[in-house]
């Protein structure tokens, strides 16, 4: 594969850091490490940049979550998103169209009202909208599903591929070697220290490995003898043909466990969470998922009844027990860092990449990152976040 940003030629035999996974998280951490002066950073990916969830996600961005941990990390990340195109000198098509969480029941209205109070405490600008205000913002909504809404005006969406490739090119300009079609087959550990990685294209000697392998993160961690308590999930999404604009903000529909937005080009992109048969390893799509999405979105936005779906796809995430990312060093193996367990990885990548790179180079884990340490599972400190549009396939 020859793509801008991808390295040509042989793999390096030695590298200061090897990042496994050229999704937006791996690329972000590699870019930030190079920005902080690390000389030779190598990113390896079994396929190519953005081949996994980074190129398949709903591309929606917000920071108005309900827990202080999520708000801290994701608001830092949203701040970076807002100026990322200039920082990377490449387009991200970040659009602050607003992010609307739609409440359909009295209970959900209570939830978003409580969230808004926490947002004020954390300095986030969000607004609880009345039913007429929601319908004024999105007149196409079915009034029957509107009981209220929570709007974060400066949130919105970006373009997945543009963002991934802007990171890839910016990282390459800073000297990062991004190698596609390079599968890690083993991680060498001696005396509880990382010594290198083995790949299908040869070994790389290194003392630092960042596991940013997305949907394959658990398998990659296992190569170093580290068990992470993640569950692989397959999420499905679809896109319609380009339509005249009818939906401005990014929209989360709590009742349907669904999320959607209309791109600047007019395509309507949506995804729903369905309790499907556990076909977690394939990227194939289901008719069941397509029907579920059609039913929910036509109920939500009745004008979509005759819109034509032009593509449907699936992506794999490897979600942690509390859906929060697992970020930071691994206690058992010196030199192994985790940047995985993501459910909202596109959103959080700029923030996590910068904070992780700071932690790696300084040896000090920043406060925003600390709650996401892998040790939280063993210590029973799961992060309680109540405003996620995601559910466990296994019903946990």
């Amino acid at each position, binding site marked *: 594969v020859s793509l801008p940003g991808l390295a040509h030629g042989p793999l390096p035999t030695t590298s200061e850091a090897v990042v496994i996974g050229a999704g937006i998280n791996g690329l972000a951490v590699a870019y930030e490490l190079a920005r902080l002066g690390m000389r030779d950073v190598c990113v390896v990916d079994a396929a190519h940049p953005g081949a996994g969830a980074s190129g398949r996600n709903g591309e929606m961005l917000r920071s108005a979550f309900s827990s202080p941990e999520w708000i801290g990390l994701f608001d830092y990340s949203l701040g970076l998103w807002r100026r990322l195109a200039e920082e990377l000198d490449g*387009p991200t098509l970040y659009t602050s169209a607003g992010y609307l969480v739609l409440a359909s029941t009295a209970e959900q209205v209570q939830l978003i009202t409580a969230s808004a109070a926490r947002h004020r405490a954390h300095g986030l600008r969000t607004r609880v909208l009345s039913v007429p205000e929601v319908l004024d913002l999105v007149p196409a909504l079915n009034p029957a599903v509107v009981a209220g809404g929570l709007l974060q005006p400066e949130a919105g969406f970006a373009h997945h591929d543009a963002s991934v490739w802007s990171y890839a090119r910016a990282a390459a300009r800073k000297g990062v070697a991004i190698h596609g079609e390079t599968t890690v087959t083993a991680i060498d550990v001696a005396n509880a220290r990382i010594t290198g990685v083995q790949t299908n294209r040869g070994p790389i000697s290194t003392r630092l490995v960042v596991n940013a392998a997305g949907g394959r993160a658990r398998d990659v961690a296992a190569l170093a003898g580290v068990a992470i308590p993640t569950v692989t999930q397959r999420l499905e999404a679809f896109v319609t*043909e380009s*339509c005249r604009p009818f939906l401005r903000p990014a929209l989360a529909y709590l009742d349907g466990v669904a999320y959607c937005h209309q791109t600047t080009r*007019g395509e309507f992109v949506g995804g729903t969470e369905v309790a499907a048969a556990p076909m977690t390893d394939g990227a194939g799509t289901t008719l*069941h998922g397509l029907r579920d999405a059609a039913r929910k979105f036509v109920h939500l936005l009745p*004008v979509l009844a*005759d819109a034509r779906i032009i593509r449907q796809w699936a992506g794999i995430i490897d979600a942690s027990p509390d859906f929060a990312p697992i970020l930071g060093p691994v206690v058992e193996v010196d030199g192994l860092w985790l940047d995985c367990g993501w459910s909202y990885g596109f959103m959080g990548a700029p923030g996590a990449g910068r904070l992780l790179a700071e932690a790696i180079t300084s040896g000090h884990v920043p406060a925003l990152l600390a709650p996401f340490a892998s040790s939280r599972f063993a210590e029973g400190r799961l992060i309680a976040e109540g405003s996620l549009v995601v559910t466990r396939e296994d019903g946990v």
Partner: protein
Amino acid sequence: VTGDGKVRFTFEGREVTAEPGQSIAGALHAAGHRVLSWSSKYRRPRGYRCGTGACPGCTVKVDSRPGVLACMTPVRGGEHVERIRPWLPWLPADRFGAIVPAGFQGSRLLRGRRAWALAEPLLRRLAGVSPVAAASPGQVGSYSEIAVDMLVVGGGRSGLAYARDAAAAGQRVLLVERDWALGGRLLGVSGGRDGATVLTDAARDAGVEMWLQATALGLFAEGVVGLAVDGGLVAVRAAHVVWATGQLDQPMALPDGDKPGVLLGSAVRRLIVREGVTPGTRAVIVVRDPADPNAGEFGALLASVGCHVVATCGPADVRAIHGRDRVRAVTISDQRVAADVVVMVGGRSPADELRRQGDVSVGTPYR
């Protein structure tokens, strides 16, 4: 059908007369309507192009239902057909390259936060052709499931023959075809209609169940094939799925080669042989391979309906295709030739998206 044997419908409020058996797109072409839609990004005018339902050029609104492929839809009589109109349809957005450059994600202009913040609302308004409007808002089509021994996708010569043989051997066979008539490519060949009738009768006699205007949407992870039938969805579970979807003519990269009036060979065959429509009065035939016997065949076919072939050339010889919203002339090498139709006779590719979706490899090389 009225007393004179014709069917009538309206296009943009004006009456159009059609022969029974014509498609909406064919009848519109016969009536001289060339612009049927606009491309979604640059709002370039588009029209009848492939005649196989494989491109979006003839997408129109029929009785307020958007997204109807007019070349795959027979005229019933009494329809109200409209174009799906973008915002400012006649704004030649492709002339404003600085605002809407090709592949705009890569544009330098849009790297700056402010530039993008300014450009985004305009791009957004320009985006999209179809307004979202539903004939029945909030209504989701019906859903059903069936199981058969064999599903044959495609009602052309191969599909019909295979289905006939399987049914004769005692299998329960369902054959689906997206067109409203069976025969596939046979219907675009002189005398082919009789062959199609013979095959269809044989398949029916053997017990094949045949659904027309039924489109296979995909092979899904559950192992079912989804069909779009009459606004509803049918999941078919079949022990064997036979892809007999034929081939599609491939377009060429010609300057302004998307202009209404630039037709694929498949569209010309369909218009002339199946629908009795003369594509135009003066045709330029563009042939990828000068030795392609199809070129002479198309020349004879066009001549048989009084369409004069003014030139035959290769794709590299076409320097320009003139005309604001339809073909008026073609510059071939240095010579400008008046023409109203350009026929592209290039290669064909198997219509094998469904096969690839199912990750099924082909055992023998495709010829």
